[in-house]
């Protein structure tokens, strides 16, 4: 089972360049998320989506855009990369549910982005 797959796993950009990170999940989950993780800090939510065609801002959305054209895919775009966006990016998905394992997100293995 693939679960949540992120591509690419590594990327180096120059300041001002653009790029897109792709997240794909094969669990038919409604909800998808993009987080960034920086040294010494926990994960911070960038954007999320509660269904195909919908997106919403998280804690740190500035400088990023997202799209959810298909239920299984969630794309994170950087239009003009800045050194402050150097980070490890994690995509996650979850089904909507209450009760057992309510807070369970399924994470990909991360994409390390370096902006020079």
């Amino acid at each position, binding site marked *: 089972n693939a679960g*949540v797959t992120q591509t690419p796993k590594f990327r180096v950009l120059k300041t001002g360049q653009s790029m897109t990170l792709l997240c794909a999940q094969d669990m038919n989950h409604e*909800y998808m*998320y993009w*987080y960034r*993780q*920086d*040294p*010494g*800090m*926990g*994960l*911070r*939510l960038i954007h*999320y989506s*509660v269904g195909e065609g919908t997106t919403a801002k*998280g*804690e740190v959305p500035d400088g990023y855009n997202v799209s959810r054209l298909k239920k299984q895919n969630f794309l994170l775009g950087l239009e003009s990369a800045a050194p402050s966006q150097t980070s*490890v990016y*994690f995509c*996650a998905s*979850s089904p*909507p549910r209450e009760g057992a*394992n*309510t*807070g*369970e*997100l*399924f*994470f*990909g*293995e*991360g994409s*390390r982005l370096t902006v020079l």
Partner: protein
Amino acid sequence: GESVGLHLPTLSVQEGDNSIINCAYSNSASDYFIWYKQESGKGPQFIIDIRSNMDKRQGQRVTVLLNKTVKHLSLQIAATQPGDSAVYFCAEKRGGYNKLIFGAGTRLAVHP
């Protein structure tokens, strides 16, 4: 692997001992509290959660305790094993859509 915890607090324990990882939270409105484990080079993995109206929940070798009076959450791991070595994050769920707010993390190092 990814170096995402360069300056994290570290808990060092001997194999076979019990481990207690602590977390303070700030928002009384959170309805669930969750623990995640992150091994080097991997994404976080769900361990256990607890609803805000409970004070204890047990899983396999793990127990989560919630003290709402002092806004404190802890994860107890029984008979710690080398495979438990990882960074552990607490998280709060606030509102709908499973949006989680993560703490900074604690590194657990298990020594033989």
